[in-house]
């Protein structure tokens, strides 16, 4: 009888029915929009990408892909940290020796350590540049999409840069060399300068009243478990929020530039799962359906660029690690402070600030440790966190470099960035023995390195 439905088996054994495909319908080289969309749905590694992306938001010169590069560096740090985790010994007697072994005895050890160290330095720089980019483009602002919470993603981002700095701090003291020991001394004394609770905080941080084994194991566990775990969790939320907010802020430009109004709320016909679930139609739907020429499939256009950035980052770090050796100072010596004792470059602006902020009002003195080490950075951080709520510019300023609307705040922000950079340069190149100021062309006096 011809009325019987066709149940002829297909090669591969799967039944042929609507929506059931005999073979997985995804590929890194999709031949149709359908296949491109299926790739995002079917593949675990691709599931966090949208099906379609607003083409201009992929521009190299809009985001410079700094967020992707940061994520790649973090991934590389986790990977290169794994062998180091097995080679390093977190004990005050053996930490220095084990790092020395990694550097001089273990095959490829110095390269792995260099990869880890260079990636860490680059991550601080790239995460900072990412923050600068997001600020200057007003990308923490909500544009035309519904239910956007970009301001909260900015807050997550501020949390991530703070975690990045803590990761660097806890990382560079693990070798337990002179840099490490005196960095812990100064760092925990800054915590100790907080009125009332300071000394207790320091005791909790270093696990006692003197810097010893309890200190090393605390910072070690923070470095290898708690802080990377926190970065991983916040990073996942950061990415999820980007998707929820309809992509980069630049993606909102489409509605503004074409004069299209967002679809009114309510139960309208919608083609996106998100819209169905909420009973609303997000702007991304309108963009992808109405402006086919302005959108591209995430597979493969977005994936290709993300892969170029990620692999490019890996390549740059791997190659640099072959040529840039990682320093190791003398073993930690509680008896001698190096002269000058300098923090790594990304903390030198803070070292410069704690130098300059001890103020005297009559007989009353405020230690620069508290003013410059706690209050000032704390205020800066609070201001940075709260900025999306202080920014009163129009939504047209979201996702635009140097928007006219935000000119004044961009200038103020750049001024602060310049001050931080200037302090970093002064601390790096113009501070000699006893933290005295020397111009780069002035020779440092010959001083004994030991007392």
């Amino acid at each position, binding site marked *: 009888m011809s009325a019987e439905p066709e149940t002829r088996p297909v090669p591969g054994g799967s039944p042929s029915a609507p929506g059931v495909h005999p073979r997985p319908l995804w590929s890194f080289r999709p031949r149709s929009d359908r296949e491109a969309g299926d790739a995002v749905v079917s593949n675990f590694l691709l599931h966090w990408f949208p099906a379609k992306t607003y083409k201009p938001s992929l521009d190299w010169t809009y985001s410079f892909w700094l967020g992707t590069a940061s994520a790649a560096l973090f991934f590389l740090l986790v990977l290169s940290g794994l062998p180091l985790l097995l080679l390093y010994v977190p004990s005050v007697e053996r930490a220095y020796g084990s790092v020395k072994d990694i550097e001089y005895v273990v095959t490829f050890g110095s390269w792995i350590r260099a990869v880890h160290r260079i990636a860490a330095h680059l991550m601080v720089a790239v995460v900072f540049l990412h923050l600068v980019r997001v600020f200057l483009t007003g990308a923490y602002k909500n544009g035309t999409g519904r239910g956007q919470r970009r301001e909260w993603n900015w807050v997550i981002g501020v949390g991530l840069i703070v975690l990045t700095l803590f990761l660097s701090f806890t990382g560079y003291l693990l070798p337990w060399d002179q840099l490490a020991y*005196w960095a812990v*001394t*100064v760092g925990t*004394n*800054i915590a100790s*300068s907080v009125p009332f609770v300071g000394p207790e905080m320091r*005791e*909790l941080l270093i*696990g*006692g*009243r*003197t810097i010893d084994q*309890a200190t090393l194991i*605390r910072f070690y566990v923070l470095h290898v478990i708690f802080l990377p775990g926190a970065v991983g969790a916040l990073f996942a939320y950061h990415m999820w929020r980007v998707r929820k907010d309809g992509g980069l802020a630049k993606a909102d430009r489409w509605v503004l530039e074409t004069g299209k109004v967002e679809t009114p709320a309510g139960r309208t016909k919608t083609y996106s799962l998100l819209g169905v679930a909420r009973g609303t139609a997000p702007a991304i739907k309108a963009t992808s359906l109405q402006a086919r020429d302005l959108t591209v499939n995430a597979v493969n256009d977005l994936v290709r660029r993300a892969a170029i950035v990620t692999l490019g980052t890996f390549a740059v770090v791997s190659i640099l690690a072959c040529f840039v050796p990682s320093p190791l100072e003398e073993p930690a010596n509680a*008896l*001698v*402070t*190096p*002269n*000058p*004792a300098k923090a790594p470059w990304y903390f030198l602006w803070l*070292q410069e600030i*704690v*130098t*300059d*902020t*001890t103020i005297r009002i009559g007989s009353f*003195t*405020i*230690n*620069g*440790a508290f003013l410059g*080490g706690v209050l000032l950075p704390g205020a800066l951080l609070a201001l940075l966190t709260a900025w999306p709520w202080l920014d009163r510019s129009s939504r047209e300023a979201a996702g635009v470099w140097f928007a006219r609307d935000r000119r004044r705040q961009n200038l103020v922000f750049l001024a602060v960035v310049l001050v931080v950079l200037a302090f970093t340069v002064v601390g790096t190149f113009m*501070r000699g*023995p*006893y*933290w*005295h100021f020397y111009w780069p062309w002035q020779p440092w006096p010959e001083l004994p390195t030991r*007392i």
Partner: protein
Amino acid sequence: MTTNPAPAGAPPAPEPAETDNRRDFLMKVGIGAGVVALVGQAGASLRSLVPNVSYDAPTTVKLGLPGDFPDGLKFLPDQRLFVFRDGRTFHAISAVCTHLGCTVRAEALSRTEEKEVAGKPLRITHRFLCPCHGSKYKGDGANESGPAPKPLAWYELSLAADDGQLVVDLAHEVGHDFRLTLA
């Protein structure tokens, strides 16, 4: 088959409002118990990280026989301490910077000077410089420039009763008029 919604003899169904109250109450008790348990466990975990015992180095330390100290300054790295001798008179100044705790270094002055410090004469032979943030101290420990908020600490010196060694008490700060003069 017939159904009887309210069989005879069974207790009357409670009022809906009452049920809600009871469920509400039990829900609150449950959530409350959960919160208390979580806070308690988190608190216990954090408390375990606050040290109960501190294996500090002793604060009273024998430094050696007074006769073994040179005239002028001697730096004792283990105690982070400068001990000064002027004939039969001794005093000790801490080498811990009052700004952020680095060890300051002594720099000999080109010529020594006699000065009244806290009403008593003192021979000043050195000044102190901090390598971390550039604090400067005068020879008596007074903070002169840089971020240091207060003078270097002076500690009490005494003689051990048993063997006559010089003893410092690092838990006992003294004023700048302190001198230990041997007979």
